[in-house]
């Protein structure tokens, strides 16, 4: 069992050769809700290497959005942050002022609902070129040209015309492409994508995912991709992190995640999805409901009540992180269950 606070423990999934761009260690976040402090993230540690795409997967209350916001320094006021977030070697968890502005030029965030994050009374060009003009000192005309170029890269041909339009004149899919283009314009080193395709229908989602994947590789950006869909994360991320109740429960290379998951929750999640290729009598549903960090008892495995493989050891103490098969699993029985958790086809 390794201490997840040690960065070395987390570089064991085949990316040791690439220097870590983002190192999150022992991150815990508490939010003030009606006067009480509630944990939403518990002791989260992970790394993202330069140019690497990492998926962050979980259900409601898992803490995946909070983790992304903590990295993006977008937590709500009154949030208590413990632990460290190192970007390019510098701790960014507490920096303010000029340091924070510098950080923001290197990390770009793409949100789930583009309409909520664009000003409806400003034109697209204002929105797209603002960061360039304000933080990078680029002249307006030059910024506009770069914007047109980037729009073409995301598949919007008549960029000059689109720049003059307003957000309400665009469909959700097009607006999300514009968000991606805007994020890439400032040439960040890390992209934080928080469920960018959840609000889109499935064909638009495929297009937007393809664009995101292609451009990310072309520009060599690192990416943290948050989603509730395991298969979606596996499609464009090299590694996938699975979260539950505010903790990381599994880290695995995406290629192996479906065939050989290390944690019972990952296997159960994959098995609970209906299969597009066949009908089964009943799905293998996980009993109970997903817990948030503050609902989970701290001295035992948070998933134990819903897990099919629970034993006494699971309730005796909070499980530590086990390293095996090139991945990590926060399961007290990880070694015993090794190789037995394949997503079994629905009976």
């Amino acid at each position, binding site marked *: 069992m390794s201490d997840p606070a040690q960065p070395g423990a987390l570089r064991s999934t085949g990316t040791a050769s690439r220097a870590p761009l983002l190192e999150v260690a022992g991150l*815990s976040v508490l939010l003030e809700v009606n*006067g*009480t402090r509630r*944990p939403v993230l518990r002791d989260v540690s992970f790394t993202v290497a330069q140019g690497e795409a990492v998926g962050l997967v979980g259900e409601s209350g898992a803490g995946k959005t909070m983790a992304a916001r903590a990295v993006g320094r977008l937590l709500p006021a009154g949030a208590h942050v*413990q632990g460290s977030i190192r970007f390019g070697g510098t701790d960014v968890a507490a920096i303010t002022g000029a340091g924070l502005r510098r950080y923001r030029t290197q990390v770009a965030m793409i949100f789930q609902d583009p309409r909520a994050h664009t000003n409806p009374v400003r034109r697209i060009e204002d929105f797209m070129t603002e960061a360039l003009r304000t933080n990078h000192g680029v002249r307006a005309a030059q910024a506009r040209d770069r914007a047109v170029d980037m729009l073409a890269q995301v598949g919007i041909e008549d960029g000059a015309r689109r720049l003059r339009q307003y957000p309400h004149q665009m469909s959700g899919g097009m607006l999300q492409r514009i968000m991606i283009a805007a994020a890439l314009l400032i040439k960040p080193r890390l992209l934080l994508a928080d469920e960018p395709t959840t609000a889109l229908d499935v064909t638009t989602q495929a297009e937007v995912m393809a664009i995101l994947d292609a451009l990310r590789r072309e520009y060599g950006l690192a990416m943290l991709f948050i989603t509730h869909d395991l298969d979606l994360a596996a499609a464009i991320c090299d590694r996938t992190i699975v979260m539950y109740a505010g*903790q990381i429960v599994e880290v695995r290379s995406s290629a192996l995640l479906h065939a050989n998951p290390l944690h019972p929750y990952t296997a159960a999640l994959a098995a609970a999805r209906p299969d597009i290729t066949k009908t089964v009598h009943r799905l293998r549903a996980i009993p109970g409901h997903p817990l948030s960090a503050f609902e989970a008892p*701290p001295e035992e495995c948070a998933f134990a009540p819903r897990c099919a493989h629970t034993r006494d050891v699971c309730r005796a103490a909070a499980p530590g992180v086990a390293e095996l098969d090139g991945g990590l699993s926060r399961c007290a029985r990880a070694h015993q269950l090794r190789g037995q958790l394949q997503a079994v086809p629905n009976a």
Partner: protein
Amino acid sequence: MSAVPLADKARAPSRAQALLRATGPAGIASAIVLTVAALAAVFGPLLAPYDPNLPNLSLAWIGPVGGHLLGYDFEGRDVASRLLAGAQTALLGPLAVVVLSVPVGTLLAVTAAWRRGASDAVISSGLNILFAFPAILLALLAAAVFGAGLPAAVLALSAAYTPYVARVLRGAALKERTQAYIAALEVQGASATSVCLRHLIPNIAPLIVAQATILFGYAMVDLAAISFLGLGVQPPTANWGVMISENQAGLLQGYPLPALAAGACIVLVVIAVNVLGERLFEQARVARR
């Protein structure tokens, strides 16, 4: 491994504490002022230490002395007693305005929001026309038609305020109308009336109440102005607006207390009602799901 504690239960406030904190010192002060005003409105004439209506010109304009905390007014009547007696008309008038304009405005708003289309257009146009008339102008009209007095003034103000209520509530009603649960009830075969009365209106009720309190404040000021102009409560009936009018000569002659005291009562109650209305409005806004 992880030493993060669960919800810090020791710091969780009780409901009473939370309510107190949300109300704040301003809210508490307002509540006190309004309670005193309400008591004065109900028991005023009984509580008045001296006869509020008995004139005695030899005592006119004498300042605070003995049991007369606020002195005498221009006709030698005890100011404090007259304030207490005047609370009744000063507060009942606005209450009547609210009781008339809010239900009518709500009905119009909900009808327009539910039926949309032509009904909405007709109602909105009608309300817009009514909007064009300032309250004081309508009060003049009412006084000319019905004779000066509180009932005419109340009618006029109710007519003036109804479109305001309707406009604000129409927006909220429209938003509520499009919620899925209203559609679910329609699909269940419930009648429009039943859905509006039992679901739509109760769900915008906090907003209605907040609007009513804000209107109360406006009505107080408008009615005081109307009474000051001589179109509302007629002297010698005690009324704060009338008292300002009656005693305005004192302001220039060095006896400001009667007029100012009446004015201060109006201002205090209006502020208190506004603070309360704002708190309720915030609650209505925040407590949406």
